[in-house]
């Protein structure tokens, strides 16, 4: 009994049902175990792992400002809209409580989007397609991203970042 000491020797062979169940479960487990790495190499959509340390936030801010100065094509609600060259490095800065700047990207072209935070942790959640990544201060996370559908996308912050958390919405325009 689970509440009493078992008999002296309880190490006994499994019965047929038990063997069957364990074998089935084991097969399923091995299937999922193999799935993750295999999909990592053949799949189209995986969490990226390219990342850099940002010791000095100003250095990242300078990259953002440089990009805005060079590629700005307009403004949306006072936030600069930037149209970087396809294939280039694009910098997106998170801070309490803004995503900066607004990006305009071309459908079918690949971009390297660098995400970093100037203050605390934020969550980069692209809506309505619902893709989510963390933005951690002092680190640069590089998403290699190829938009496939045109439209307006919004970036909702989905990690608690203080009282203005619910105000933190950014935008991405895919043309």
């Amino acid at each position, binding site marked *: 009994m689970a509440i009493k000491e078992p008999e*002296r*020797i*309880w*190490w006994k062979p499994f019965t047929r049902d038990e063997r069957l169940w364990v074998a089935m479960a084991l097969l399923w487990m091995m299937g999922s175990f193999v799935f993750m790495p295999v999909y990592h190499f053949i799949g189209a959509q995986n969490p990226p792992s390219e*990342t*850099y*340390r*940002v*010791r000095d936030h100003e*250095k*990242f801010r300078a*990259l953002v400002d*440089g*990009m805005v100065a*060079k590629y700005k094509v307009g403004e949306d609600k006072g936030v600069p809209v930037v149209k970087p060259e396809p294939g280039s*490095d694009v910098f997106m800065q998170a801070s309490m409580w803004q995503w900066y700047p607004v990006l305009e990207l071309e459908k079918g072209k690949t971009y390297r989007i660098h995400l970093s935070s100037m203050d605390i942790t934020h969550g980069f959640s692209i809506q309505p397609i619902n893709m989510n990544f963390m933005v951690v201060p002092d*680190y*640069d996370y590089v998403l290699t991203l190829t938009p496939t559908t045109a439209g307006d996308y919004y970036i909702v912050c989905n990690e608690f970042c203080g009282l203005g958390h619910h105000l933190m919405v950014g935008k991405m325009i895919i043309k």
Partner: protein
Amino acid sequence: MPEEREKAEEGKEPIPAWQLFYDDIFLLFFLGVAIPTLVYTVWGLMEIVQIPELPVFKP
């Protein structure tokens, strides 16, 4: 008394090694601490200290 217990068990079938392993909660304790600490924590910390610096980008 361990001697008494040994005497009582004389002549009986020996306990299988796997059962002895499962009964040794201190060995399990050691493994239970070591495995996650090495596989998760220590490995993770090693990766964190090896992150490269932000390179120079040509805009």
